């Protein structure tokens, strides 16, 4: 049996095409990433960028939602949520950072090209970029952050990083020291949730990476996520066509985030599955207390391994639960509804916190092999913690939970 099948998930809900995609991705990433990473480590040019191309362009993840007539695959019903989960899990297993990038791309597609809310105009403008086969489109978001700028207008207490002004037929964007959610150095498209001057309602505006007035700072060093070469941005008078504003409402914004959190959750589950495989390989022939006692047969270390497997299983089930909610809006409501959004936020935080704990424990079992780069475990630990930080502060997320469950109004 495929060892990933050991961990329960609602296989009955997945289409054959989803399972086939997962199986082919599993083979692909094994050959192209897992088998090469000891040699190539986390090299961006040598390992990550070529594979981003393979995944997004050759496998076609970046064409998934777009209408067929525009070159996409028009897999754009809500059931695509399962496809996202099944695919990003596999990618995340090979490199959590690549899956994190793909989660951005897929979330943007879902927000523009979903069957029920198809944005014809925007699809017409942006689908070609994703479907022309010329290369991966790295999508990044610029979201309000926690306490960045005292004078910036706030969204639920978080500061907007970019301010937009409506001009005739265009938007003019400004922001200094803006920190995107990924790939500030590489992204082709930034989706920014901006404060709008003189108006209450924010706007989600797409900014091409080559827009005049957009400058990128140097790539900065961070804990993990080598696939996301991040850099701060400056936007000074960046002008984009009025149509680049994709939406203004909270509902659409939360819809985007719900899909994003699904992708991130699946990516994290992938990282956990990788940790499982590494630990398994290591634990199969590791001895403790002298010869003859295999690690996994020891009551304490065996129990800890069991606990890690439990954490992985629960995370996987939760991620697929989220997919199930997004896949069935008639039962659960719109992906951007308070309920589904809150569930998505809870699940992504829960999965990431569980992932942190499980990775810590895996490292504890593997001791020096846990932190030596040679065993490849520590990159998942760093990647998952980094993703957790980028998804946001758990403390603030809890306020969103309290808003929904207890009707808190001023948090």
């Amino acid at each position, binding site marked *: 049996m495929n060892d990933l099948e050991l961990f329960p998930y609602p296989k009955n809900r997945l289409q054959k095409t989803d399972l086939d995609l997962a199986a082919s991705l599993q083979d692909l990433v094994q050959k192209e990433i897992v088998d090469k990473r000891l040699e190539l480590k986390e090299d961006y040019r040598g390992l990550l960028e070529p594979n981003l191309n393979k995944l997004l362009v050759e496998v076609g993840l970046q064409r998934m939602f777009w209408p067929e007539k525009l070159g996409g695959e028009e897999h754009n019903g809500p059931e695509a949520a399962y496809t996202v989960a099944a695919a990003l899990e596999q990618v995340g297993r090979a490199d959590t950072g690549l899956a994190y990038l793909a989660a951005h791309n897929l979330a943007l597609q879902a927000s523009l090209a979903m069957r029920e809310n198809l944005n014809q105009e925007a699809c017409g403008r942006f689908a070609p970029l994703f479907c022309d086969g010329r290369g991966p489109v790295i999508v990044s978001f610029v979201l309000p952050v926690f*306490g960045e700028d005292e004078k910036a207008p706030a969204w639920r207490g978080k500061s907007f990083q970019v301010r937009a002004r409506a001009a005739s037929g265009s938007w003019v964007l400004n922001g200094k020291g803006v920190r995107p959610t990924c790939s500030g150095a590489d992204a082709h498209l930034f989706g920014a949730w901006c404060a709008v001057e003189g108006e209450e309602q924010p706007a989600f505006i797409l900014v091409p990476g080559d827009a005049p007035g957009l400058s990128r700072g140097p790539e900065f*060093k961070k*804990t993990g996520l080598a696939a996301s070469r991040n850099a701060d941005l400056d936007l000074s008078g960046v002008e984009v066509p009025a149509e680049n504003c994709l939406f203004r409402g909270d509902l659409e914004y939360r819809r985007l985030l719900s899909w994003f959190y699904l992708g991130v959750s699946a990516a994290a589950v992938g990282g956990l599955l990788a940790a499982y495989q590494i630990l398994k390989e290591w634990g199969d022939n590791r001895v*403790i207390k002298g010869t003859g006692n295999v690690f996994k047969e020891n009551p304490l270390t065996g129990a800890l391994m069991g606990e890690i497997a439990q954490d992985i299983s629960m995370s996987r089930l939760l991620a697929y639960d989220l997919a199930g909610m997004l896949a069935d809006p008639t039962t659960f409501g719109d992906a951007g509804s308070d309920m589904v959004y809150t569930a998505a936020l809870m699940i992504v935080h829960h999965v990431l916190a569980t992932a942190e704990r499980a990775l810590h424990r895996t490292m504890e079992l593997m*001791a*020096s092999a846990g932190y030596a*780069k040679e065993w490849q475990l520590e990159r998942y*630990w760093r990647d998952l913690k980094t993703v957790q*930080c980028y998804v946001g502060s758990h*403390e603030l997320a809890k306020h969103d939970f309290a808003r929904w469950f207890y009707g808190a109004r001023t948090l």
Partner: protein
Amino acid sequence: MRGIDVFSRPLEYLTPLGEQVGEIIREWVENEVIPYRRRFDEDYLEHRLILPPFKKLLGEYGIQRILFPEDLGGWGLGHSDYLCVAAFRMFEEIARADSGMAVAFGVVFWPLVLICCEPHVNRRLCEEFAPMFTGTTEPVFSCLAMTEPQGGSDIENVEVLKGSTIRTTAVQDGDEWVINGHKLWPTNTGGVADLMAVVCTTNPGSRNPDDIAIIFVPCDRPGVTQGPAYEKAGMAADKNGDIWFENVRVPLWYRACGPGDDAKYYGEVVSLGNMGSIAFAVGVMLNIYEKLQEYANRKVYRGLPLKENDAVAGVLADFATTIEAVRIIGYQCARMCDRQDLYGPRWSPEIVARARAHRYFAADRALEAIGKVMNLMECFGPDRDWDVEKHWRDIKMVQLWLGGKQLSQMEVARWFFECETL
């Protein structure tokens, strides 16, 4: 703004010398380490940036001499009853900048403890090796070679395995030892070490503690080969590598304490290693406190500094509380190791178990608290320029060495619950 000195220490335990050296190290850290540390990760192989500050601290200030007796050019700390408390302060101060450096620094003294401390001072070996450390202003490093390929740090599980899994052999040939074997992971290897203490067996497979030998080997002896430094998740200043011993010959009297005593005093190495690990965790947390203060003051949420938000304050409080607790426990552990007249010998299974308990408690608490702080800082948590992530990566390693958490748990259970077969 409150500085790091507001955190509690047992004031009655402090020593003038430790405090004085602590101040010197704080200044050294500010001038020689903090300005460069963000580039240390990439310097793991070469130590181009890491070696110069070490030269100043160890060689020029002469801190590498502290353990040796005064008449041999040292500072006589090995004879004192305040070595550990003084070391705790020094470790904290260095780890505040870089716990990898603190580890490398601490390990310089680790093997020397076996020959420089009462009641097992080996005067002849002190005389032999003191000049190497005291007669130079270049930094001199030592290492303690324990871990082997087959059992990992299982070899440190002396109480259970009694050395039976050690595969590095020392065979007596006339008035020399002939050493053969392969060690992994010692701090200060990867070409750095000048002197090694090697844990060997004089009778492979034996469970008799008399057969465990700790033998000193100067690294320039024929047959000693150090491999290149490993690439790790952090701790670039702490170089680790493979060491191979191929028919390495040293005089018989290079054995640290002798049959039985080598195994016995090995417990001391474990106690002190655990005590030091707590100091590293404290130093790291003190620096994170500084960075976190800056962050929580500078960043604004709903018109007020972040720290004024109750939800944030909860995380801040947990972090300060963890520092308080871990620091107090660490100083008590150091005092326990110093005042053997009150607490018993520090090589005893009892003190080893206590020190292990204190250390793994401290590491668990530190990691949990730092993890929460990083998450609070969102995208700046994993940002190298905020320094927190570096400490987080480093301190994870502190938790994992010396046998890792599970071995510590077994030793603690064995002592406190008198388990016999664990």
